[in-house]
């Protein structure tokens, strides 16, 4: 197995609102022998600024890539958005000489140079490709066999598919395979590969909520006891905004949404407290009861 050491790119959303993702990811990584080296001088991946100024977004991503190159480590991200922004910029700069020249001209102002020496991976890709599903399964101490999960993959971890390199982009099994490793049952549901509605820059307040509502309702009617996400923005939308969605549409769902690393951690024998499940907005009390009965 390859050397499991990575530069951890945290991004913005996780320290801002999704601390339980970081806590559970660090715990799980530690048990799996993944060494996470912090990036003390990193900045936003650039994605939030992309719609307003693509050049600055590219420069921000390039700066993070240069920092990881200096560390001599591949980047691991927990966020679909960061994975997408950093992967795309990395690949574009490696492939497009003109662009590389232009960006390096800009990076000269801060004494950096993009060389193209590292790769960027989402934690789901690290678990699937660098560790491997079979090996991952060997860490499962407590299979979650009585749990029914609706995986919500998100967009940017697999689209655009010419950059993100995820198998079968029409119907990707990246997350459902990872959920299956925990022993839980996976349900398919309508529109599961469509956008959750997370978009800070949207000028419309209602449409993002409609998109999130569709996913929650479809997952629920497919029989899911919980949803599982790979991205802090999706999680914020489906879990953090769930009470707002309930109020807006006068409906009640109460569908807990876990970070994948929390689900995996439970299957690996960690306790709900160790994985910060109490920080979820939609309290997973009923789910934990079901789990205890297994």
């Amino acid at each position, binding site marked *: 197995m390859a050397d499991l050491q990575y530069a951890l790119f945290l991004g913005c959303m996780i320290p801002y609102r999704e601390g339980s993702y970081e806590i559970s990811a660090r715990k799980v990584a530690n048990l799996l022998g993944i060494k996470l080296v912090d990036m003390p001088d*990193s900045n936003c991946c650039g994605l939030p600024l992309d719609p*307003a*100024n693509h050049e600055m977004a590219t420069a921000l991503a390039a700066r993070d890539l240069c920092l990881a190159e200096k560390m001599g480590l591949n980047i691991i991200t927990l966020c679909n958005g960061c994975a997408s922004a950093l992967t795309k910029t990395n690949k574009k700069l490696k492939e497009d000489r003109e662009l590389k020249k232009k960006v390096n001209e800009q990076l000269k102002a*801060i004494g950096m140079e993009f060389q193209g020496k590292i790769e960027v991976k989402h934690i789901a890709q690290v678990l699937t490709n660098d560790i491997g599903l079979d090996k991952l399964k060997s860490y499962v101490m407590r299979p979650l066999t009585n749990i029914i999960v609706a995986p919500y993959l998100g967009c940017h971890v697999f689209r*655009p598919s010419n950059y993100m390199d995820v198998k079968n982009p029409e119907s990707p099994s990246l997350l459902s395979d990872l959920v299956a490793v925990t022993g839980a049952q996976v349900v398919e549901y309508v529109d599961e590969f469509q956008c959750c509605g997370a978009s800070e820059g949207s000028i419309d307040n209602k449409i993002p909520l409609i998109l999130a509502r569709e996913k929650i309702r479809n997952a629920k009617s497919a029989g899911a006891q919980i949803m599982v996400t790979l991205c802090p923005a999706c999680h914020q939308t489906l879990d953090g905004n769930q009470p707002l969605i309930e109020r807006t549409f006068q409906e009640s769902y109460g569908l807990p949404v876990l970070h994948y690393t929390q689900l995996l951690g439970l299957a690996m024998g960690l306790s709900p407290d160790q994985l910060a499940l109490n920080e979820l907005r939609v309290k997973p009390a009923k789910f934990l009861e079901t789990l205890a009965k297994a």
Partner: protein
Amino acid sequence: MAEAQSRATTHHYKIDPEFKHELMRVPGGETFKYCYQCGVCTATCPIARFTEVFRPNKIIHMAKLGIREVLEDDTVWLCVVCYSCREKCPQGVEVADVIRALKNMAVENGCVPAAFKEFADNILKTGLAYNVPESRIARRSTLGLPQLPKTNLEDLKKLAEVTHLRKVIEE
């Protein structure tokens, strides 16, 4: 209703033949020329499903015709950048990137939704797009988490200068 319809049919757009060339020069805008208006982008778009005002193929058609109003109109900002459109486009049009290029042009023209000013401001002040509250930063050590990155803000200021970010912040 009838009045609205007649207004719609008599609306005259100004056509600017230079516009498409401008769009071609903005990174991400290049592929719009391959669009043949099949409408698959709109058929697959989750936003188009829930609002009548957002039609990606219409946005591209307006750009092709040289209708500069596409930049003044708020509809480009409805795109959530999920990339479903580009996955389905039979012509290889990077639809979401074309819309991003139009957004970038709109910003150059002085139209910047508030969220982006805030992101830009936060990034230059803290390195991150969201302003993480002090209480949450302090709580990290009690949770056993390492300190948040301390970005060299001078670096970001310099990058903002060479990429002309002031357009976003000043407008």
